[in-house]
């Protein structure tokens, strides 16, 4: 099955073995001439199965048996992420929320509480807080600045919308009994930025990703937040970062 989508301003044709990925991406359907095509074969699905099994083992959980069409969804996004650096765009692992037209991106290792914290922002700010993407947004870095794009791949709670918002700040989140936040340097944030960015298989695309991260780092502020699950954590992080 094939269809055309527009994701992060790029027109992408997805050619798949199973139908599920097209349902998953349906809000991004578009009619136009594709900038590029991604098509999956069985080997791509098998690769995702191996990869998720390795992650499960690393996280010390029993290896999940995942459906072929779910694994294909992952394969499709991987293929898109491989192409995106060509268009000054890369995939970043984090929860992105926009308030008053500016995007705040929370990042941390899986299971730390990124989504929990952005949920507190929604509780605090109501409809002023718009979830851009709760898991894997795309970030474009060009002459227009740093822009975060919603994508269909927005986490298990499917939180996100098809919008583009300028990025204001990246916040590295840690669990803590009490809430505290401080601005950190680009150098202090750098390792985490590399760890949370998708690393392409293609070395040209990886080199481009690294230069995009460096340029992005010049345009935004970085923060380190220690937080608990009380709404006061959101009040502290929002009020401090908005400046």
């Amino acid at each position, binding site marked *: 099955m094939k269809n055309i989508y527009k994701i992060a301003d790029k027109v992408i044709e997805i050619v798949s073995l199973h139908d599920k990925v097209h349902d998953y991406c349906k809000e991004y359907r578009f009619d136009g001439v594709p900038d590029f095509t991604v098509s999956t074969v069985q080997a791509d699905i098998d690769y995702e199965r191996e990869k998720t099994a390795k992650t499960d083992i690393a996280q010390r959980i029993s290896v999940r048996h995942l459906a072929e069409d779910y694994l294909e969804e992952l394969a499709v996004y991987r293929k898109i992420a491989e192409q995106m650096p060509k268009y000054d765009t890369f995939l970043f692992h984090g929860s992105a929320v926009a308030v008053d037209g500016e995007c705040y991106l929370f990042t941390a290792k899986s299971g730390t509480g990124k989504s929990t914290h952005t949920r507190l922002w929604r509780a605090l700010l109501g409809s002023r807080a718009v979830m851009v993407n709760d898991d894997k947004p795309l970030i474009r870095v060009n002459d227009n600045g740093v822009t975060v794009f919603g994508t269909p791949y927005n986490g298990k709670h499917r939180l996100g919308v098809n919008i583009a918002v300028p990025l204001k700040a990246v916040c590295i989140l840690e669990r803590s009994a009490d809430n505290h936040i401080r601005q950190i340097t680009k*150098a202090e944030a*750098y390792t985490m930025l*590399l760890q949370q960015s998708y*690393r392409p*298989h293609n*070395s040209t695309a*990886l080199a481009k990703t690294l230069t995009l991260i460096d340029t992005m780092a010049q345009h935004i502020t970085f923060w380190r937040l220690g937080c608990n699950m009380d709404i006061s954590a959101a009040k502290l992080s929002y009020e401090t970062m908005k400046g």
Partner: protein
Amino acid sequence: MKLNKNFLVHKSGKETIVVPTGNAEFSGIVKGNKTLGVILDLLKKDTTEQQIIDTMAEEYEVSREVIEKDVRMTISRLKELGAIDG
């Protein structure tokens, strides 16, 4: 020996960083100072541990003993990560 093609060397400020592509088994990041940067630059072309030590001993005002120790340690670590071929 030579730096494996799945590892990229990136300089950010004073730090030298080795970043693997998605193809590498190793998925972390190696960070180091200028010494790491110099060793990695030399590893872009096919070379030997001895050649690296000789080149660095000629270029830097540091005792050969210290250079030898640094180079052997760095190369052994990079080999463990699969970042060096041959």
